[in-house]
C-alpha cells in the first residue's frame, strides 16, 4: 500500500465510535459561549478603562447628583491613572455586563467580578435587583459561579432564571427565594399570552431549543407560527416594543403585531443584520441600532411605520473616542463597539453618544442637540437604563441612571 492510500485511510477512518452525547455537547458549547461573551464584554470594558482613564477628569463621588459639564473629548489621557485602573481589573461592585429595567424603578443587572486579569479565569457573575431606580440593589441568591443565565423579569415579584441546560429557577417573591422547576415544557401556544414573555431557551428535558412563550411559573410553550430559526433580538429579548414583537431570522427582521400569531418581514436593508439589532422606542417611532465588532461603526435606524421600513439616521457629529487598543481575543468575538451607543429612556427619548459627549434626538425636528451627561470613560446601555463606568480614576465605580439625569452608584453588598 502506498503512502497516499495509507494517509487517506488513516484520516478517513475517524474515531472508532459514532458521535455520542451530541445534545450535551451542544448545550455545553452554548453555555461556554455565553460565559465567554460576558467575560469578553467585561474585558473590553477594562481595556477601554485602561485606555481612557483620566479623560473624564475627577468628579465628586456622592449620591444622587447631576453633573452639568460635558467633558472635552480632547482632554489628554492620564497614563498613570490608566495604569492604576488596568491593575484594578474591576470596578467597585464589578463590571455590569447585562441587565434590564422593566419600568422606571424596577430592574436587574449582572455584574462580573474577576480576581485575575484573565477573563476566562476566576470570574463570577452576581445578579442583583433594584426597586428604586438603582438607588439600592439587592443581591440575588443565584449563580455563585461564572455560570451564566438569563433573567426573565415578569414583574417586580416574579422572575425566572434560565440556567441554559439546567432546570430553570423560579421566584415569586422578588428573587428572595428560588425553586427549581422540572416539568416546564407544555406544548404550543398561538400567541404570547398576556403576562408571559417571549423566550428562546433550551428545554432541559429535551435539549430542544424553544422559541415561544414563558410564563412566570417557568412554563415554556412553543409559538405555533414562529418563523423557522427565529431568535430574539439583542434587545429587547422578551418584550414587545410599541406593541410589536420582533425576532431575527438570520439577517432578516421579523415583526408581529398580534402577539406572535402572524409574522411579517421588516425591511432593515442590507447594511445591518437583524440578528445584531436592538430595537427601542414606541409605536409612533421606532429606533434600532446594531451591535458591532470592535472598531466597526454601528448603524442607527428609525421607522415610523411600525417597522415595515427603516431609514438610516445619521449619528450626531462625534468626537474621537479611543477604540480599545487590544484586538479581539479570538476571531469570533461578537460583542464590542466603537464607543458609539444609542439608548432609549422611556419618557425621555432617544440618546446617542460617541462615548464621551451626548446628544438627545428632538423628535419634532429629527435633529440631535447636545445634552449634559454624567462624565464617564465608558457607557454601557442596558435595557432601559444607562451605566456609566469609571467616572473617577481614584474611586472607580459604576453609576446607573434610568432617566439620564439622576445617577446612583451601583452598590451590591
Amino acid at each position, binding site marked *: 500500500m502506498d503512502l497516499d492510500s495509507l494517509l487517506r485511510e488513516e484520516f478517513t477512518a475517524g474515531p472508532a465510535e459514532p458521535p455520542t452525547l451530541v445534545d450535551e455537547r451542544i448545550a455545553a458549547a452554548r453555555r461556554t459561549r455565553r460565559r465567554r461573551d460576558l467575560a469578553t464584554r467585561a474585558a473590553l470594558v477594562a481595556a477601554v478603562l485602561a485606555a481612557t482613564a483620566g479623560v473624564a477628569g475627577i468628579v465628586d463621588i456622592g449620591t444622587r447628583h447631576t453633573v452639568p459639564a460635558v467633558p472635552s473629548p480632547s482632554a489628554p489621557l492620564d497614563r498613570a491613572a490608566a495604569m492604576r485602573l488596568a491593575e484594578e481589573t474591576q470596578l467597585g461592585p464589578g463590571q455590569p455586563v447585562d441587565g434590564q429595567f422593566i419600568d422606571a424603578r424596577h430592574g436587574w443587572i449582572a455584574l462580573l467580578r474577576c480576581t485575575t486579569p484573565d477573563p476566562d479565569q476566576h470570574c463570577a457573575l452576581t445578579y442583583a435587583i433594584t426597586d428604586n431606580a438603582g438607588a439600592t440593589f439587592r443581591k440575588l441568591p443565584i449563580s455563585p459561579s461564572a455560570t451564566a443565565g438569563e433573567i426573565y423579569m415578569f414583574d417586580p415579584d416574579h422572575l425566572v432564571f434560565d440556567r441554559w441546560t439546567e432546570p430553570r429557577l423560579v421566584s415569586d417573591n422578588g428573587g428572595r427565594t428560588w425553586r427549581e422547576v422540572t416539568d416546564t415544557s407544555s406544548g404550543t401556544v398561538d400567541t404570547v399570552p398576556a403576562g408571559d414573555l417571549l423566550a428562546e431557551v433550551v428545554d432541559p428535558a429535551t435539549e430542544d431549543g424553544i422559541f415561544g412563550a414563558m410564563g412566570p411559573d417557568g412554563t415554556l410553550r412553543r409559538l405555533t407560527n414562529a418563523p423557522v430559526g427565529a431568535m430574539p433580538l439583542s434587545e429587547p429579548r422578551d418584550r414587545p416594543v410599541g406593541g410589536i414583537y420582533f425576532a431575527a431570522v438570520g439577517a432578516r427582521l421579523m415583526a408581529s403585531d398580534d402577539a406572535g400569531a402572524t409574522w411579517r418581514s421588516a425591511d432593515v436593508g442590507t447594511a445591518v443584520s437583524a440578528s445584531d439589532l436592538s430595537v427601542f422606542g414606541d409605536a409612533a417611532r421606532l429606533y434600532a441600532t446594531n451591535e458591532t465588532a470592535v472598531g466597526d461603526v454601528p448603524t442607527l435606524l428609525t421607522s415610523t411605520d411600525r417597522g415595515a421600513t427603516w431609514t438610516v439616521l445619521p449619528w450626531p457629529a462625534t468626537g474621537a473616542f479611543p477604540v480599545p487598543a487590544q484586538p479581539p481575543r*479570538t476571531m469570533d468575538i461578537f460583542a464590542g463597539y466603537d464607543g458609539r451607543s444609542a439608548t432609549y429612556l422611556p419618557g425621555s427619548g432617544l440618546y446617542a453618544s460617541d462615548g464621551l459627549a451626548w446628544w438627545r434626538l428632538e423628535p419634532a425636528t429629527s435633529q440631535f442637540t447636545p445634552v449634559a451627561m454624567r462624565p464617564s470613560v465608558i457607557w454601557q446601555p442596558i435595557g432601559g437604563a444607562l451605566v456609566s463606568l469609571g467616572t473617577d480614576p481614584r474611586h472607580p465605580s459604576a453609576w446607573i441612571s434610568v432617566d439620564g439625569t439622576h445617577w446612583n452608584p451601583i452598590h451590591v453588598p
Partner: protein
Amino acid sequence: MVDDSFDGFVRAHIAALDRYAHALTGDRHRADDLVQETLVRLAGAWRRVHRDAGDPAAYARTIMFRTHVSLWRRWSRRPDATSLTVDPSTSRDDYGTVDARLTLRASLGRLSRLQRAVLVATYLADLPDEEIAALIGRSEATVRSLRHRGLKALRADLGITGPDPIEPKGGSRGPRLPVA
C-alpha cells in the same frame, strides 16, 4: 424543511467534525477537546455566519484548523496521551500493512501541527493549496513546503525509499470528502 439552527447544524455535522478532529489530533481526547472548542466558537459566530450567508460547514472547518494550530503550544505543555511508538526497523513482518499503519500513526504524531494540518487538508478535505493556505493562514509556498517535509518524514519512518513521488496537487485527488 431545512434546519438552519445551530443545533441542527451540529447534529448533522458532528460526525464529520469528529472525523476531522481525529485526523488532526490523532488522539480521542484531544479530538473531543478540539470539536468542543470549535462548537463554542461556532456558537458565538452563528448569527454572523448566517448574516453573511456563509457556509457554516466551511466556517466550522476553518475554525477547527486554526484552533488546532493555535492550540499547539497549550497542548504541547500537557503530558502526552499514551502514544503508540513503533520502531519500523523491528516491526516489519508479514503483518506489514498493519505495521505500516501503526508506524504511520506514530510518525504523524511526530509531525508539526501545521504539517499534519496540511496533510489532513490535502488527503481528507482534498482542498487545493490556495484554500489550504487560507485555512491555516500561511502562503501557498509554505503549504507546499510543509507538505513536502511532512511526507518526507513519513516516508523515512515507513522506510519508503526512492525518488520523491509527485507531490499531491490539491483539488484533483479523487472524490472530495466534504465536512458533511
